[in-house]
C-alpha cells in the first residue's frame, strides 16, 4: 500500500484522536471496565442488620480510614412507644465493636441503621466545591480528587448526611468511594463482602439483570432525607419513619 506524504499527515492526527477516545472511558487499573455501563448504588435491608459492626471494621481496613472517622457507620435506634418522632440514637465508635446488649422486653422498638455516602445523583457536596475536586463519576459514584482538594471543608458542611470529614493527616476531604477500586474490578464493596446477613448489597441500576429492579418493585423502599432532592442511591428497605 502506498501512502503519500499528504495522506500520512492527515491520517496521523486522526489516528491519535481515535486512540485518545479509546483510552478515555477506561481507568488505567481496570482495562475491562467501562464506566458508561454502570450506575452504582447500594441496598440496605434494615430487618437483616444485626449490628455486628463487620461493615465498619472492613471499611476501615480496606480504605485505611483514620481512627475516630468513618466512611460507614451503624446507628442503633430506640423508638419509644410514647415518643415516635424522637428516637434515642447511639453509635458507639461508629458501631465498630458492636452495641451494648439490651435486656428482653424493651420499651418500644430497636433497630440498626447502617449509614454511608448516599452516592447522590444530584449531590449537594459536589456543587459547592470551588475547585472541582469532588465530582460524580460517569458511573454514578461521588469521588474526591485528593490531589486537587484544598481542604476548605465546604463539602463537609454541604453533605446533609454527615458522610464527609477532613482527613487528619492528608488535610483533604475524605469519604466513602463505594470501594471504587473494588467495584471496577468486578468485586463488591468491603462492607457488602463482609456483611454476614446480606443486609448490605451493592447494586448496579444500569444492569438489567441486577435483582435490585425486582426488589424495588416489590418492597417498601426509601432513601434518607428525600425532601432534599439529592437523588440518593442508597436504598433502605423497611426504613422506620423516625430515621433522619
Amino acid at each position, binding site marked *: 500500500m502506498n501512502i503519500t506524504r499528504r495522506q500520512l499527515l492527515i491520517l496521523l492526527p486522526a489516528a491519535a484522536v481515535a486512540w485518545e477516545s479509546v483510552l*478515555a472511558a477506561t*481507568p*488505567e*487499573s*481496570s482495562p475491562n*471496565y467501562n*464506566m458508561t455501563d454502570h450506575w452504582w448504588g447500594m441496598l440496605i435491608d434494615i*430487618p*437483616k*442488620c*444485626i*449490628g*455486628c*459492626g*463487620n461493615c465498619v471494621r*472492613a471499611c476501615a*481496613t*480496606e*480504605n485505611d480510614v483514620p481512627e475516630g472517622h468513618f466512611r460507614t457507620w451503624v446507628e*442503633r435506634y*430506640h423508638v419509644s412507644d410514647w415518643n415516635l418522632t424522637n428516637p434515642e440514637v447511639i453509635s458507639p465508635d461508629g458501631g465498630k465493636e*458492636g*452495641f*451494648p*446488649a*439490651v*435486656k*428482653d*422486653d*424493651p420499651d418500644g422498638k*430497636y*433497630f*440498626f441503621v447502617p449509614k454511608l455516602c448516599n452516592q447522590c445523583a444530584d449531590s449537594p457536596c459536589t456543587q459547592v466545591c470551588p475547585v*472541582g*475536586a*469532588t*465530582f*460524580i*463519576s*460517569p458511573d454514578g459514584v461521588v*469521588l474526591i*480528587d*485528593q*490531589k*486537587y482538594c484544598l481542604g476548605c471543608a465546604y463539602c463537609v458542611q454541604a453533605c446533609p448526611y454527615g458522610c464527609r470529614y477532613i482527613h487528619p493527616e492528608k488535610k483533604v476531604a475524605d469519604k466513602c*468511594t463505594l470501594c*471504587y*477500586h*473494588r467495584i*471496577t*474490578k468486578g*468485586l*463488591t464493596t*468491603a462492607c457488602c*463482602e*463482609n*456483611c*454476614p*446477613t*446480606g443486609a448490605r448489597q451493592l447494586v448496579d441500576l444500569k444492569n438489567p439483570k441486577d435483582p435490585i429492579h425486582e426488589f424495588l418493585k416489590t418492597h417498601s423502599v426509601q432513601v434518607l432525607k428525600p425532601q432534599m432532592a439529592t437523588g440518593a442511591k442508597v436504598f433502605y428497605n423497611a426504613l422506620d419513619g423516625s430515621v433522619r
Partner: protein
Amino acid sequence: MSVFKDAGHLFRFAGLFVIAFIVFLVIRGYVVPKTFGKYGHYRAAAIGEIAAHPIKYAGHQACESCHTDIVTVKQKGMHAHVNCEACHGALAAHANDPTSVQPAKLDTATLCIRCHSASAARPKDFPQVDAAEHSNGVPCETCHNPHSPAIDAGGAK
C-alpha cells in the same frame, strides 16, 4: 483632522490586551491538568488513580477457587452466605501469596459472640445466645462447626 487622530494609543492598548490574553492562555495551559474537563468540571485522571487503590479483602470468589472443601461444607449450613473474610479477616495478601502469608488462627470466643450474643435490639428471628448460660465457657467450636453451625444438620464435629 479626523476624530481618530489619536487612535494609535488605542491600538497599543489593544495590543497589550492581546499579549496579556496570550500569556493567560499559556499559563492556563500549563496549570490546568491535562484531563481536567474531559467528563465534567474535574480531573478525569483522578478516577483511574482512585481505582488503582490496593485491595485488602480478596473477595469470596478468590477463597473459593482453592478452598473447595470448605465451600462444600458451607453450602449445607446456615453460614452458606457468610463470606469467608467476614470472620477470617482481610486476606488479599494470602490470596496473592498463599504459601508465605498465612491467616491468623481465629478466636471463636470473641468472633461468634459479635453476631450471636443475645440482645433485644437484634432482629427476633436471628439466632442469639447468652454465652455464659449457653456454654458456660466451653468454646463454641467444641459443639459447632463454624462453617456449618447447626448441630442436627450434620454440620457438627
